[in-house]
């Protein structure tokens, strides 16, 4: 009896193996030549990276069962890598530099080779530095085998087009990253989203603005970066009018395989021709679901089916960034292009009010017992005029409607159906194989003011790898306690999103988690090696928002001869200090500062240099470490040097009766800085001679869109007040009064 089983088992294995090998015999080779290029999306020529001469990178097509063989020829002057997003593959092919391989050095060729054991819409991108922002993204499509029993009539046989979404900025991405870390509000200015006091007053929301600053928040937007252009397959407009030389006509359905290759933008997708039928996500089929719109998180993929309703018209599919500042269009069909109304501008102060309500004084979010999950409840909805206030009314009218009790009865408008994760149902049961279950909980944490993004308030370089064992079922419970949404991506595995669909929970490899949401995921540990789990917003990832899952016992990776050294290089990403500098060339002297900061440390020097010795010269240098999640507290050591020529025997006396001469004074100090409500910086500093100085200071009070105010007052009886009018990213007109140097006006140059 036993023996018969054994033989039939063997036979089965042999058949399976031969079947596999007949499919697997097909090796599909692509050669990718990666080169520097110059592009012109906005009228200015800028550097970008092109692969085989194009942006985005070429579409790669395969059939399940093929072996992919991709030759990467790095013709850049810097190293690179390619990550195959969403694919199950051997760890050394995953394309994360310093984690699964060494970076592909300039002038060399690297071959990725792996069997394709799944199908669906995926994509690929550089995992090196910020290269993804400037062109290194492309569609990776794996078709189902012919005769595959999962082939769906009316979906898998439709005219199809891969579409990869992305954004373009004329700024260097390194500079974008640097500016984000320095809480520069230039992007908000470009988006007209500064949310200044004047704008608040205009909308009658002054109290909201005060409340916001009282809780020590900077004005928030739904996204961080201002982009100049939004692209669909590298273009702002795209037409899908024929398939296999056959023009598309009324009644035809088409399928779009959409990937979000944007570095930091979520996109709303809306269709002028009616409902959008969502049929797959992250390369996994789901039961078709009809929606009016969906938001595609950074790095997600969705397959959607659209119908062409009428002859003589082609219908717009509009992709709009979440902040609604940019969009790109695709037209489906032939004829006059039927447009869809653009999304109206966000009501920022409504969002600010909501944030005030949701945030506790200690920086934690409170969800008021709503148990939010799975994008079912979009809190940003308070900012959407199209949902909260049915169209047609002007802003003015909205205001009047707000007076008096309650809100104006809304015009009758059928509800807009927005896709959320609870609506997704797998086409087949996705229950995990048996195995020991282990639960890991993560809290997504962040600090907008200093642009620190982390898990459990620790960045990648501050943590050890998370050890997992093959055969385990890992359950991840993730709570977002930060103010921004995060698309969390797991390399090399799909996870089940526990969404109330029981055995039919959808499989994904990216899940967008909104502020205050808790989502539960589970996956079967069925691989080997080290796998990155991180927020896919490029600038969050580079700030260290991630973890590494590492299979134990560890298997050596032939592409990483010195894994320890390599890991240190990986940690460099989030340890990197960011530089900023500023100088006010004023009529009464030079005021300026420079600062080097990273996740926890800050080194800064301020100077005030008069034009004569009566005005004096002084510099203060502080080296400090930020404490706590919100980083409101920073103890520091300092060094002061000042020289000021004063009258004979003249001494300065501070509020405590302590004296100093300021005459060629060099002092070491110990101090602490704390951010008070209203974002006022309080500093207490003791010098080596026993002198104590207390100081209150605030810079960049947003009075109006381009107007900033600052003030400083301290117990040395020094004070300063100034105004700045921003004219450019790097320039501002400034005027200030200083107790040492008097009134001055000039030009502030900042970097």
């Amino acid at each position: 009896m036993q023996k018969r089983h054994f033989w039939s088992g063997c036979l089965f294995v042999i058949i399976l193996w031969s079947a596999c090998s007949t499919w697997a015999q097909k090796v599909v080779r692509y050669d990718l030549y990666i080169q520097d290029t110059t592009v012109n999306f906005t009228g200015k020529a800028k550097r970008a990276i092109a692969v085989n001469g194009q942006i985005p990178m070429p579409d790669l097509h395969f059939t399940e069962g093929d072996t992919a063989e991709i030759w990467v020829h790095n013709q850049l002057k810097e190293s690179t890598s390619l990550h195959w997003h969403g694919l199950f593959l051997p760890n050394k092919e995953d394309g994360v530099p310093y984690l699964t391989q060494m970076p592909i050095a300039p002038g060399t060729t690297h071959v990725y080779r792996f069997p394709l054991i799944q199908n669906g819409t995926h994509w690929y991108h550089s995992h090196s530095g910020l290269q993804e922002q400037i062109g290194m993204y492309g569609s990776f499509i794996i078709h189902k085998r012919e005769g595959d029993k999962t082939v769906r009539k009316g979906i898998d046989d439709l005219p199809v087009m891969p579409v990869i979404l992305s954004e373009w900025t004329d700024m260097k991405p390194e500079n974008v990253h640097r500016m984000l870390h320095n809480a520069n509000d230039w992007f908000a200015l470009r988006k007209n989203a500064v949310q200044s006091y004047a704008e608040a007053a205009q909308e009658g929301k002054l109290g909201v603005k005060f409340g916001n600053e009282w809780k020590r928040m900077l004005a928030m937007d739904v996204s961080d970066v201002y982009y100049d252009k939004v692209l669909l397959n590298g273009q702002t407009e795209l037409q899908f009018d024929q398939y296999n030389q056959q023009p598309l006509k009324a009644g035809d359905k088409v399928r779009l395989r959409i990937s979000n290759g944007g570095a930091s933008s979520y996109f709303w997708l809306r269709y002028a021709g009616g409902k959008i039928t969502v049929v797959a996500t992250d390369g996994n089929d789901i039961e078709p679901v009809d929606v009016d719109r969906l938001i595609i998180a950074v790095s997600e993929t969705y397959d959607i089916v659209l119908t062409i309703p009428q002859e003589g018209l082609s219908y717009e599919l509009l992709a709009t960034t979440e902040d609604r500042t940019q969009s790109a269009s695709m037209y489906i069909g032939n004829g006059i292009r039927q447009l869809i109304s653009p999304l109206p501008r966000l009501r920022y102060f409504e969002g600010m009010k909501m944030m005030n309500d949701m945030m506790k004084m200690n920086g934690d979010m409170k969800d008021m017992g709503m148990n939010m999950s799975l994008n079912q409840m979009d809190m940003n909805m308070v900012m959407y005029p199209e949902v909260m206030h049915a169209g047609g009314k002007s802003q003015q009218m909205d205001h009047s409607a707000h007076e008096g009790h309650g809100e104006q009865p809304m015009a009758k408008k059928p509800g807009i159906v927005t896709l959320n994760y609870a609506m997704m149902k797998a086409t087949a049961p996705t229950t995990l194989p048996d195995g020991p279950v282990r639960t890991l909980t993560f809290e997504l944490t962040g600090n907008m003011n200093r642009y620190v993004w982390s898990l459990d308030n620790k960045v990648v370089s501050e943590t050890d790898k998370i050890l997992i064992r093959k055969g385990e079922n890992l359950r991840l419970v993730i709570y977002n306690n930060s103010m921004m949404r995060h698309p969390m991506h797991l390399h090399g595995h799909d996870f089940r999103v526990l969404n109330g669909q029981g055995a039919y929970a959808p499989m994904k490899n990216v899940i967008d988690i909104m502020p205050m949401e808790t989502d539960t995921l589970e996956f079967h540990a069925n691989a080997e090696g080290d796998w990155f789990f991180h927020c896919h917003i490029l600038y969050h990832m580079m700030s260290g928002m991630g973890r590494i899952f590492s299979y134990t016992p560890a298997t050596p990776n032939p592409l990483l001869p010195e894994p320890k050294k390599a890991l240190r290089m990986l940690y460099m990403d989030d340890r990197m200090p960011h530089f900023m500098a500023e100088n006010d060339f004023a009529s009464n002297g030079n005021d300026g500062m420079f600062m080097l900061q990273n996740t926890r440390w800050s080194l800064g020097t301020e100077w005030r240099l008069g034009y004569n010795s009566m005005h004096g010269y002084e510099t203060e240098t502080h080296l400090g470490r930020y404490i706590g999640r919100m980083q409101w507290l920073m103890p520091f050591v300092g060094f002061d040097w000042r020289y000021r020529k004063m009258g004979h025997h003249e001494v300065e006396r501070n509020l405590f009766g302590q004296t100093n001469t300021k005459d060629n004074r060099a002092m070491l100090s110990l101090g602490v800085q704390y951010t008070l409500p209203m974002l006022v910086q309080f500093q207490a500093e003791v010098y080596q001679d026993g002198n104590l100085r207390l100081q209150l200071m605030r810079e960049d009070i947003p009075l109006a869109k381009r107007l900033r105010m600052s003030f400083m007052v301290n117990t040395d009886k020094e004070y300063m007040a100034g105004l700045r009018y921003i004219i450019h990213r790097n320039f501002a007109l400034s005027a200030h009064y200083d107790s040492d140097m008097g009134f001055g006006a000039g030009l502030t140059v900042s970097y």
Partner: protein
Amino acid sequence: MKSIIKIAALILFLLPVSASAQQFKHSKQVTVPVSGNCDMCAATIQKAGSAKQLSSVNWNKDTKIATITFDSSRTSADAVLKKIALAGYDNPSFRAPDDVYAALPGCCKYERAVAVQPAAQQHQMQDHKAHEQIQNQSLLQPVLNNYLAVKDALVQSDGAAVQQQAAALQKTLEGISMSSLGEKEHMAWMKVYEQLIAESKVMAAGKDVAKQRRVFMELSQHMYTLVQAMELTEPLYWQFCPMYNNGKGANWISKEKEIQNPYYGSQMLTCGRVAATIE
């Protein structure tokens, strides 16, 4: 005097010329038919298509022809026509969104070259929506029904009945699963559900009608926020009694247009007026 008139005439003469012959760096001009009716249309079309140093549009109301001048190095005729369509005006390249066209002033509602065919599928979609509405409605409808029962008990000035109905309302409120509500309802629900529960609890705590009425005033305001977000099958009336609350007045919601004052009951049953109709 004469010279002033001369200068004025000269300015008047020059103005339209300088406006129409606006020059751009790489200037290019095309003429395109654009639908529209009147001077108001002309103003909208020209404003929509014009941008500093980018493009200018001159639309002739009689010929329905737009002359588009643009900087060909920075924009295209199509980009300008798209802006015009987004302002509500069909042209050979783009058809305006239906909701934008519908919002045009009456005099501007030109006849559209391409009409939307009532597709069979669209009917289906509407049916689907109607079906959804019924589903949505059933979720908060019990809350409304309980509220109306509380109100009716107050009209009868029956403290014990109020207590009973308020307890039922509280139970219904606590049983609502927020996540199954529609977007709009969900938002409204979030704003008021805590107060609603607290208020119904207070009303269910005793039989004192005077006390119940004071709470009912708050309860009604919060219910009002909620019903405005609901999909209703029949209209409700937001009614107002100017006397209650020391002459400051108070509101309630009713299914009937006729006044049945819950704040005074039989004392002045028909005192009050309809402040708003909720549909």
